[in-house]
């Protein structure tokens, strides 16, 4: 460190967690802007323990693989609490119909998204699809003017860090994702791939098997999660003109 007295990035993301002054708040310099996947509790939805832990682990994969700082503390936020506005990213995971959100929840969701927050809706049981459908329905109540649109493989989400050609999670799922787009930015991502399921661990091993691709698919799922985190942190940075010639060349080489 060239003789300079300073803390390493990883020290910030791990060792200093013990200094947390208040639940849900960053506790060190450089921490306030670190990525964290907070879990959203809304309606009648329920996130199982393994996937709740996966949300917290998301940051560790980001920190290990990229220069981005992350925080692994687990936090569950509600749509009708002010704590929702402490950070701009939340994950809403579930397997069942969430029912109808209360008026205050819809209002909170609307304000969160209009302020610039990003929400990932991760269906833990995409074969059933009840969670995904109900989440779309309730989000449409919050942003009725912005129905979901399809994000093609050319979207910046698939090149924010890794070069990917499709989304994957615990299941292979559809080759595209849907999103609510406001302005130039996707503010809600609808995943029908159980991404948290692919990241979830139980003890020393993985919590759920990945189908049908096994470890390779899990690695791609982790890469997709990293890309989502990078999209949250950099928005459409990789769409900048300076990157275009490089990325075109690399895509061509990969094929």
């Amino acid at each position, binding site marked *: 460190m060239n003789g300079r007295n300073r803390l390493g990035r990883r020290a910030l993301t791990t060792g200093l967690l013990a200094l947390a002054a208040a639940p849900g708040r960053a506790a060190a*310099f450089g921490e306030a*802007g*670190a990525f964290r996947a907070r879990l959203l509790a809304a309606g009648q939805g329920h996130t199982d323990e393994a996937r709740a832990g996966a949300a917290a682990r998301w940051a560790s994969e980001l920190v290990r693989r990229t220069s981005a700082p992350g925080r692994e503390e687990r936090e569950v936020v509600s749509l009708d609490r002010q704590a929702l*506005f402490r950070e701009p990213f939340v994950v809403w995971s579930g397997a069942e119909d969430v029912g109808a959100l209360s008026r205050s929840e819809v209002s909170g969701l609307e304000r969160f998204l209009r302020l610039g927050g990003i929400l990932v809706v991760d269906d833990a049981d995409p074969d059933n699809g009840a969670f995904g459908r109900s989440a779309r329905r309730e989000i449409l109540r919050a942003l009725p003017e912005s129905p979901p649109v399809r994000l093609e493989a050319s979207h910046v989400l698939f090149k924010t860090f890794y070069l990917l050609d499709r989304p994957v999670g615990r299941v292979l799922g559809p080759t595209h994702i849907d999103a609510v787009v406001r302005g130039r930015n996707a503010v809600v991502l609808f995943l029908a791939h159980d991404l948290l399921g692919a990241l979830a661990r139980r003890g020393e091993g993985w919590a759920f098997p990945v189908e049908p691709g096994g470890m390779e698919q899990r*690695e791609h799922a982790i890469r997709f999660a990293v890309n989502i985190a*990078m999209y949250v942190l950099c*928005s459409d940075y990789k769409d900048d003109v300076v990157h275009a010639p490089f990325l075109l060349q690399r895509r061509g080489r990969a094929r």
Partner: protein
Amino acid sequence: MGNLALAEGLTPLVAAVAALVLCVWLGFVFYEVRSGRRGRSAVVVSAVLAVICVGGALLRPTRVDQRGARLGPRVALLVDQSRRLRLPAEHGDRRGVALAAAGALRRRWSSAQVDIFGFAEGKLVPLSLERESTLGQLGEESDLSGALAELEAQPGERVRSVVVVSDGRFSRPTERVDDAALAAALGSSGIPVHTVRVVEQAPADASVREVSTVGAAVAHQPLVLHVTVGCAGGLRCDDVPVVVRELRQGSPAAELARGVAHPGAGEATIDLEVTIERAGQRVIEVAIDAPEADRVPENDHRLLTLDVRRERVRLLHVAGRPTYDVRQLRLWLKGNESIDLVAFFILRTNSDQPNVVDDTTELSLIPFPVDALFTQHLPTFDAVMLQDIDAIEYKLEPYLPALAAYVRSGGGLIMVGGPSAFSGGGYAGSPLAQVLPVELPRTGEPYDLRTFVPAYTAAGRAAPVLGGVRQLLGEELPSMEGSNSLGKPRSGSIVLWEHPERRIGEVPMPVLALGEMGDGRSIALGVDATHELAFSELAERTSGRAYGALWDGLLGWLMRDPRYEAGRVSLERPCIAGEPTAFELVPPPGAAGEVVLTIERLGLPAETALTRKLAPGAPLLHVDAGRLRAGGYSARMRVGAAPPTRLDFACEDGGRAFADSRPDPGRLERIARATGGKSVSPADVAELPLPDPTEVMVERRASALVPPWVWSLAAALALGAHWLLRRRAGLA
């Protein structure tokens, strides 16, 4: 001398009617006595006497005595007051010759009423040849047509003739106007215009006669300068090198273009393409390398103040790692249509493990083009934002001297906090630290982990930069997780936010500071959580608008947006070397405190400081800055603790008036000829004709020849005698 006149108040009509009646009556008497009656002679004589007496009683003739005098004619002497008259004549300067000629004329025409006026491009100014204070106001041009029109419109005695003392290079009437038009324009009043030609021959002079541009100057875009070079007075200029430079503060002038003009014994225009990288007022020098025999070195260069506009702010945003703070700044920058953003974020370090076999096919990362960015492309940016990036780890160190020079030459710099910013990023002791508005500590912790809420300083409350944030949030600011360790502010810098607990010696540590560094500006923001203004519980109350207000202000100030300047500084008139220079200062609304105006010469460290106190509520302040030498200058106004407002300006030696030193004696001769006047050299002013004097009546006395009652009595007696004689002659 006396004259006869009728009684005052008697109209000619009444007098004529009375005379007619009396004549008719006398004729009737002659008719009556025609038949040779006795005593007819007496009747006729008495009738004539009666007519005379009655006529006298009616007309009451008076004697009028008048006395007159001869006054000298009113003559106007118009002396050219353009600063062009400071150019050389055959002997001395033209102004000296003109004033000597005017003095000689006034002495010679001591019997006349000689009014001496100075004329330039404005109104006529009465001159007193004995009082130098009346002679000092020089103008840019010589508008003779306007001066003559104003003279003609003056009330009082009409001018009988005009004498113009000049070198003949009038802005009006123009060089191209023909004799007929001259006669129509100047000769219509019938007043002869004599001319005195103060100089006949052009001095040996090579000069930059004119510099013009095609279109407006826009930063980063080529601008063509049309440079006209002239040679006169027998000087031959086959090859005249021309160079264009930009004068900058605290550094040598930067050469922008070079060329060669070939005016020969006339003039030639060359086009030089320049690209000015910085927006705002920029002082440009166009200079020629004149031949040795050149007698007027002052016009070998012109200084222009170009108002360089900016189509879009071209901004380089470099971040050491992606965070919510980086995200928010990028979203704001990308959402601003007036910003052309080039961004580079470090997404991977050597210690990261992306778990890939082939970086080039599995990752979307590109190498950080540090060399290209900070060498060839650097001048193309209006501002650079360094956000939490380690100068050593990412090999920025070798480029920091160039980055510092970029700021001093007019670039903008914002360093945004984070663990790898300021001292934490290896910037302490680097050349870049010298252009930051705060010192950087080289020892101790590079940052502090304590959570705090920044506090506004007095300057922060007064600064328009933070006006938008304060409008939305008042004194409230979000809580920040830690802060960079910043040192005390550099001289001339302003602290807007400070740390409520951390101190440097006796004073609070700066958190947000602004500074002027040479020609450029820089901002130090020692926190990494301004995104809390966009997305947080506090931001939710204002829909995140305080974030945009903060960065609008910071970037606006960096780019010299007038909305974020603390007041306005302007010159009351163009600055001319050696002549009084005055400024008009407009402090920001509600500002109070000492107003300090500092004038600094561009390119040199010399500095003149003036201090003026602002009277409470005074909206304007006029400041005389004395007489400046030729060159480019930067004037800075500071009101109390608010950030300074800057005006860059050029101070020329003679300015446009000196650009073409050739006199135009031919035009003076044509003007004289067209108006019936005479054109002479200063040595021959005695040949100018003085108009005839004017006769004026100074006394008139009227007195009755005979008192009216005598006329009445005589008329009654004469009529009575006539009546008696008529009776005796047997008439009715």
